């Protein structure tokens, strides 16, 4: 299927009505602004007169007692207006969501190298940054706990261990015909949202504060800022028009910078802006959790899985942050799409003296899935079967369809069909034969191929977060203002939700104006995360639009003296029989008839019943499925690797916007490929991040993308009743990149068939070389 195919089947709603605006490829609402440089990010907002700039003083050690900081030289530096420490926080010096374990500014103890200790407020950013370097820290250094091994040895945790026990894996392992066990190291990942962390705060009258924040969660920024300032939440208004990338990094961790700006604005009475320098952003913000998966698997001679026991050791860093949900999601995805008759999924949330790891696209899911994909490869290698056959034999199927956390998978045929179709369209078998022949020549170059299936649960596993609100205003000219709690960070949420509203009113997409996410417009929103943005906000906006439409119908009905059921909204007009007027004319008529043309909508996902303590109930509304087939070539003398071709078939239900969805799939895959192949975070022995810029941290660029990259959508309606039967698409495609890791494993395996491949993630050239050397020796 061509990448920009807009003519997908199924462009009808549940009632069989043809869709005009939904299910079509529309560019993003801001596309024209982006290409002309006119799209305004926070650093582009014209600063009010007198705006001050912040820079933090960062802790120079990873762990220790913070006795004091001599700030005299900082205060005396040119253009410095104020220097703020924990003592200057009028409310609570706490940015943690639930566990009260991370302060805005360090107090008493240093939690990680680079932790903000004080904030300089100066006339210019440069002056603030120069001044921030002049502090003298009085810290009693202690030996830091930095790595997963350190934390396991020391027994440090941010949260208690937590397991899913399904059947009896221990006895099943003891009776299984064959077993394997090993460890897989899985690296973290820096978000490198191209727009770094930023917040700007403008003090208002009576203790109010307007905050512009590049955040995926304006409500949380409001909540934390109010807590820091010690004011009611109603006094803080947070606005986010767009983010220059979020990827999870700005879900919880945007709060600190916005709150610092607000604190400075409160202290000085002037507008204040906090924009992190890139290197500081790298050092002071959390990353994807790195894991060590300790696994044991029991299987039969055909490679059918009988038992799985995995301990997911996650490095959470210095505080809980989002590690409850992240590591839980790794556990939920520890079996991916494979049936595990007996399984024990363990988790250890390790506390280290490093920056607090946080959400990153996939939210732990990718780590859980990578571990079992390694297991499937290992089982295939041990049994001598093609890894694809082993994967297919272990897919969920009717009767073998319950996950280790007890949820039944209803749509098992969707994934099976995807895998079968991709196997055919990617020409897997012929290429496999070709690669086997190529590798049999024992050359320096080796090729590998892998087809990896994916099952990703959609919903927040914290049930109450599955809600959204929207506000829709229709004006008397028929133009429509749309606002909802979701944030636009490039994923195309605003255009998708605008399509939904345009469809509901039967008006062109251009008549709907999406507006900045604002806590004043739609309160108490959930973060835009968990691939649930369009599911939740699309539904909420449709509810709001439907309310207004239901008020407009009687106006037209009375005006024409026709039955309400006869009135139709389509193509910008409202009609009944041979009577017709524009949508704007009806809006004007409704106003004259004293009818409200503004409504809010609220939606909550039905049926999410997960009870974490009891480990029962349903954590996901539905699953998104997909599969990717990747082919790689490696040089076993240098470790160099090239992804030669990738085929993806992915399930987005009935796509709301095929072009946007394909972009998410391509982009997610590339980001996942970076995580698993080139992006390596290195902390030195003192706990300093050594890779804190794109010069030392390798992010995929155009030349890294597979030259032959084929992406197609299944376009099969979601069996769950989602917005126009679509599915969330933000996170799942990232996980498809496990196919690249498995393909590299496959290429390496040709060096010593039957052996376990000692490759860890990310599979950098260095690691590939080390694995090759190890297999050859």
């Amino acid at each position: 299927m061509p990448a920009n195919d807009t003519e997908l089947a199924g462009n009808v709603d549940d009632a069989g009505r043809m869709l005009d605006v939904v299910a079509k490829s529309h560019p993003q609402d801001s596309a024209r602004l982006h290409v002309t440089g006119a799209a305004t990010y926070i650093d582009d907002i014209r600063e009010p007169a007198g705006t001050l700039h912040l820079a933090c003083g960062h802790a120079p050690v990873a762990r220790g007692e913070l006795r004091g900081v001599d700030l005299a030289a900082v205060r005396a530096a040119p253009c410095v207006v104020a220097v703020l420490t924990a003592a200057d926080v009028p409310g609570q010096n706490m940015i943690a969501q639930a566990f009260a374990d991370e302060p805005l500014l360090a107090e008493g103890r240093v939690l990680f190298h680079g932790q903000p200790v004080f904030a300089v407020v100066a006339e210019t950013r440069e002056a603030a940054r120069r001044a921030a370097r002049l502090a003298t820290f009085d810290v009693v250094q202690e030996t830091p706990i930095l790595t997963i091994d350190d934390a396991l040895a020391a027994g440090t945790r941010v949260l208690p261990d937590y397991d899913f026990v399904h059947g009896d894996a221990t006895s099943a392992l003891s009776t299984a015909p064959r077993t394997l066990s090993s460890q897989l190291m899985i690296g973290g990942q820096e978000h490198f949202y191209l727009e770094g962390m930023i917040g700007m705060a403008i003090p208002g009258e009576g203790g109010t504060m307007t905050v512009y924040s590049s955040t995926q969660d304006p409500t949380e920024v409001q909540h934390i800022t109010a807590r820091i300032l010690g004011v009611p939440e109603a006094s803080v208004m947070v606005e986010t028009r767009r983010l220059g990338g979020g990827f999870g990094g700005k879900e919880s961790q945007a709060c600190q910078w916005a709150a610092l700006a607000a604190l400075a604005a409160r202290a000085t009475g002037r507008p204040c802006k906090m924009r992190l320098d890139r290197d500081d952003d790298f050092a002071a913000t959390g990353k994807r959790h790195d894991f060590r998966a300790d696994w044991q698997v029991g299987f039969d001679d055909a490679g059918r899985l009988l038992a799985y026991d995995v301990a997911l050791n996650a490095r959470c860093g210095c505080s809980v942050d989002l590690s409850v949900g992240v590591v839980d999601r790794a556990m939920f995805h520890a079996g991916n799409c494979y049936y595990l008759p007996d399984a024990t999924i363990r988790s250890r949330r390790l506390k280290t003296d490093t920056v607090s790891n946080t959400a990153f696209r996939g939210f732990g899911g990718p780590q859980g899935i990578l571990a079992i994909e390694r297991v499937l490869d290992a089982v295939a290698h041990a049994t001598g079967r093609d890894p694809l056959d082993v994967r297919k034999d272990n897919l969920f199927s009717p009767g073998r369809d319950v996950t280790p956390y007890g949820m039944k998978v209803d749509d098992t045929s969707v994934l099976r069909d995807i895998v079968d179709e991709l196997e055919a369209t990617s020409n897997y078998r012929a290429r496999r034969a070709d690669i086997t022949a190529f590798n049999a020549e024992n050359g320096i170059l080796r090729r590998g191929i892998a087809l990896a299936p994916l099952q990703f649960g959609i919903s927040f596993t914290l049930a109450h977060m599955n809600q959204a609100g929207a506000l829709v205003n229709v004006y008397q000219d028929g133009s429509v203002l749309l606002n909802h709690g979701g944030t636009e960070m490039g994923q195309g949420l605003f255009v998708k939700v605008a399509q939904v509203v345009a469809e509901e009113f039967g008006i062109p997409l251009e008549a709907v104006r999406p507006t900045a996410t604002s806590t004043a417009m739609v309160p108490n929103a959930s973060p835009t995360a968990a691939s649930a943005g369009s599911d939740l906000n699309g539904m909420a906006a449709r509810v709001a639009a439907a309310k207004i439409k239901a008020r407009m119908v009687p106006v037209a009905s009375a005006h024409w003296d026709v039955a309400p059921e006869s009135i139709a909204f389509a193509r910008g007009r409202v009609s009944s029989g041979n009577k017709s007027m524009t949508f704007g004319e009806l809006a004007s008529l409704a106003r004259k008839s004293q009818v409200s043309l503004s409504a809010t909508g609220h939606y909550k996902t039905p049926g999410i019943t997960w009870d974490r303590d009891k480990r029962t109930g349903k954590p996901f509304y539905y699953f998104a499925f997909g599969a990717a087939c990747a082919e790689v070539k490696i040089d076993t003398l240098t470790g160099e690797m090239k992804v030669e071709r990738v085929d993806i078939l992915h399930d987005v239900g009935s796509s709301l916007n095929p072009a946007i969805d394909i972009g998410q799939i391509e982009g997610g895959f590339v980001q996942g490929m970076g995580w698993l192949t080139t992006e390596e975070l290195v902390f030195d022995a003192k706990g300093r991040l050594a890779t804190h810029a794109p010069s030392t941290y390798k992010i995929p660029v155009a030349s890294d993308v597979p030259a032959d990259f084929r992406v197609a959508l299944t376009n099969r309606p979601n069996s769950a009743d989602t917005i126009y039967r679509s599915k969330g698409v933000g996170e799942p495609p990232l996980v498809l990149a496990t196919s690249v890791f498995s393909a590299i494993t496959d290429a390496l395996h040709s060096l010593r068939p039957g052996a376990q491949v000692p490759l860890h993630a990310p599979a950098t050239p260095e690691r590939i070389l080390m694995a090759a050397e190890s297999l050859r020796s």
Partner: protein
Amino acid sequence: MSQSDDPVDDDGERHGAGPALTRRSALQVGAVLTTAPLTGQAVAAPRTYPLMARPAAPGQTMKLGATINGRQFEAEIDARTSLLDLLRERFGLTGAKKGCDHGQCGACTVHIDGRRVASCLTLAAKVDGRRVTTIEGLSDGKRLHPMQQAFIDHDALQCGYCTPGQIMAAVACVQEGHAGSRDQIREYMSGNICRCGAYVGIVAAIEEAAGKMGRRA
């Protein structure tokens, strides 16, 4: 509040004497701002902080004359100013973005005499007597440049933060003669990071626009 002993530097004259160098200071009213005490229980009244201009930098200023997006200008600038800061803060041309500020991401790409540069690593002083084009100057404001249109048509953007830099790099890539094939485009565009990974669309857009730019030339 710990800094309250001496929140304001005492020699305000020194600070007040600096030239109006930036978009920021140009907006400042230059008068002492007094802030009324805030009402509300939980809110302590802040101290008053008068506005200051940025410090004078004697001997570090220079006269600069250049053409930016077709318009000639002359100005006194701090000789240490980067081209990116000059464009963004003095001229309000915020299309070029500060992504890494180290010349490693490409978000700040603009043209000097038609050649692409990382404006964050280029001293503004270097453009004296030269012609600078930014994303804002790429089209006439009515009709989009073929590259801009192609970026829309091929969904070559997601969050958009890298887009102005990508487009400026792409136009230069074509003009340099480095857009002869997909592989060549991929190689010669590898200095511009798109963290959203919209590279398939970016390469396709450049391929298409290259044809149109060629015909137009």
